[in-house]
């Protein structure tokens, strides 16, 4: 532990802790836009600059580590810089939240009373239209914080997005301007989840134009595989239908990361063809709703009959990819000791 001064108060911090984190623990919120705990400190947007005694100029709280005896001020004239930097970003922010995602820049602008003094004549960026059906991108909402690109490089270790060019020509674009479908992108949507202005957004047919903050969140476990990612299902408050899936960085084990299925493949929930109760095929050849007891009973009877007639080697087990390790263990136990066959497989094994 080290001691430092935060706005005149003596407080403690962990050795090597970033100013932005230590300040937050002591109740002082320092605004950031390019910072993300999942990523290496970047210090690009400069929104978090604070005064540090002895430093020749303000330092970024998101990239400066606390040392013993450091004196940090987060208020006073330094906050003027936050307003000016917000004005600068607004002066090329032509589009706000195209997909209804939260816009942290506009939040800051409201809080600080910042307005663009004028619109940069070259603020308009080349439009980007992607044939994929899951993610959209509006370059005019991008503030070049580079979080999305750093996410692809540092977390996903893939080549999906690039920070292209420099100066006024700089832009974020899928690698070489290709469709995401033609890059290494797996459409996990991680870039979208770290974007502070909603420039990258979920591109669904319906229900997503609603502001994300107006949605009801229900926390649950993703059902797609055994990892157990924690997700928030976002419901339309009127229809109670799921309109998007999000996650938070404090959720374990996934730390806010999701895969393409977890984030985007939820439309089965409300699909009319979805099975909602057990069905057993009757003598008429048609499927009929029934109880779980009857369904399991029917399965067991048929299995026993098959084994009696053709031997246990005539039976094989195919386990679903959606099962957990424990469930898969039970399946092989049932196959080997219950039925007496080694023909067990899971599609996860490939």
């Amino acid at each position, binding site marked *: 532990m080290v001691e430092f001064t935060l706005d005149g108060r003596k407080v403690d911090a962990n050795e090597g802790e970033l100013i932005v984190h230590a300040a937050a623990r002591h109740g002082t919120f320092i605004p950031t836009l390019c910072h993300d705990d999942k990523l290496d*400190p970047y*210090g*690009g*947007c*400069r*929104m978090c*600059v604070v005064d540090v005694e002895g430093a020749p*100029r*303000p330092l*970024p709280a998101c*990239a400066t580590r606390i040392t013993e005896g450091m004196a940090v001020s987060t208020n006073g004239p330094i906050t*003027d*810089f936050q307003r*000016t*930097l917000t*004005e*600068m*970003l607004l*002066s*090329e922010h032509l589009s706000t939240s195209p997909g209804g995602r939260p816009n942290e820049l506009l939040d800051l602008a409201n809080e600080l009373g910042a307005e663009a*003094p*004028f619109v*940069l*004549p*070259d603020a308009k960026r080349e439009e980007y239209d992607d044939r994929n059906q899951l993610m959209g991108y509006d370059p005019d909402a991008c503030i*070049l914080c*580079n979080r999305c*690109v750093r996410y*692809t*490089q540092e977390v996903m*270790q*893939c*080549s*999906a*997005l*690039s*920070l*292209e*060019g*420099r*100066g*006024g020509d*700089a832009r974020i674009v899928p*690698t*070489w301007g*290709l469709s995401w479908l033609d*890059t*290494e992108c797996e459409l996990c949507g991680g870039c979208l989840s770290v974007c502070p202005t909603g420039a990258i957004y979920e591109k669904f047919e319906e229900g997503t134009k609603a502001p994300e903050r107006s949605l009801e969140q229900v926390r649950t476990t993703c059902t797609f595989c055994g990892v157990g990612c924690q997700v928030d299902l976002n419901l339309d408050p009127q229809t109670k239908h799921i309109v998007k899936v999000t996650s938070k960085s404090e959720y374990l084990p996934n730390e806010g990361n999701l895969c393409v299925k977890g984030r985007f493949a939820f439309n089965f929930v409300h699909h009319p063809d979805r099975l909602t109760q057990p069905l057993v095929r009757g003598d008429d050849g048609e499927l009929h709703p029934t109880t779980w007891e009857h369904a399991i009973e029917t399965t067991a009877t048929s299995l026993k009959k098959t084994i009696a007639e053709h031997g246990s080697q005539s039976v094989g087990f195919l386990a679903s990819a959606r099962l957990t390790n424990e469930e898969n263990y039970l399946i092989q136990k049932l196959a080997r000791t219950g039925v007496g066959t080694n023909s067990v497989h899971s599609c996860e094994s490939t």
Partner: protein
Amino acid sequence: MDVLRATVLLAELPLERTRLLDNLGRIRREIGPIGPELSDALADHMNIRRGEVHEVVSFYSFLQVSADAVRVCTGPVCDCFGARELLERTPGAIEVACLGHCDLAPAMTRGDEIVPQVTHSTNNGPAVGLGARDETLAEYAARGGLDLLRNLPPLERIVGELKASSLAGFGGAGFPTGVKWEAVSQEQGLPFVVVNADEGEPGTIKDRYVMELRPHLLIEATLIAMRSLDATEGYIYLREEYATARQRLFRGIEEFQAAGLLEGLSLELVIGAGAYIAGEETAMLESMEGRRAMPRLKPPFPSQVGYLGRPTLINNVETLAHIPAILRNGGEWWADLGMRGASGTRLWSVTGAVGTPGCYEAPSGLTTRELVDEYAGGFTGDVGSIVPGGAASGILPPAAIDAPLTRDGLREYDAGPGSAAVQVFPTSYSPLRLLAETMRFFAEESCQKCTPCRIGNRALHHLFEELVHGKAAMTREKVDEWLLAMEKTSICGLGQSSPFPVRNAMEWWPELFAPLEQGVA
């Protein structure tokens, strides 16, 4: 694109990430401009993600441009001397921000060929002695060179003489050289030595003169640094536009090698690809490591954590070129070469409306009038404005021609001597146009990483372009706020110092900025 040739070349290219820029340069020269196919092929060959190579290729101005392209410089001096007209009558020419040949303004390059032909207007100063014009290593040795390399003084004496001389970096920032050498020598781990030859500040041509006229002097000084600090690897990061210097250094290194003077050492040229910001020392390290030349956050400083994470001495070409004379004659001898209390001599790049534009070694502490009259052939007409030391150093009114070109001498003008690139503009060239062109340069060369530099410089460029037509998109109050944010919150020297010429111009020519006072038009 010749696929077969590309495949053969690719197979030869080294795989280390530090070779990325070099590999891209070779592909551009031998195959052609680098588009998505070549970029992806190289990424796959080097096992780097394609997106990261795309980021690097798009960062530098020249990688997507043919190696024999015609480039016209529109830096402020060239702009003043007819660059726009030259651009118009040269079909297919590309406009570039600075070619580093302001003494030939307006300058143009056709591939590696400089147009008009390179000439040197210089003098034979006491420390660097540009007049020597060494053609070979033997000539250099005959003039007394190599003695220090053969009889290396101990590090303590070198640091002592450097401190006694008060030699400070000539790249513009002015950090004391002796202190820097000492700091690197005290770090743990094998250090690197990097020569910053990425001269790119408009108006600055001094490092080019050193490399073209006295390449062996620079190489010897670099080897002195490497030997003294126990560095086995040294690099000279040279801007791509300096084709003559490239050939001279390349041949010079070969001569040192043949003479057995590189025993156990490696000294390599790293060729840039068109990015002013790569001259910022940490951006240069990023570039050498195969990434976009975006400045790192400091601290840590390169002397602590530099190239590949190791302690690194980074010195400017001119700074190194003074060191042999300092070690030979003593730090105090060098310090006494200055005038009016300033130490030593400097290489002054003098361009614009003067009789003989060129690079002259003259005492620190002289005035613009003394420099131009005694060395550069006098003023060719009435002086409209002066830039004392490169684009970011400030813009001075004619009254400043009698101010000593030192930090103290220029303090009353809120300017500094920067890289000692004195540019004299005639009365026919409006300071507002000069300012707009200067801000255009900074806006285009900003690496874009930090908000104040990326947006501030662009906004001010647009503002002054419109102000030429009497329109003011921002109020003076707002401009001052933005300038302060740029100066105080930018990551590196580019954004931190670009407000200075703006403030100067607004102070010395208030009438040109009157529309700002009246508010938004």
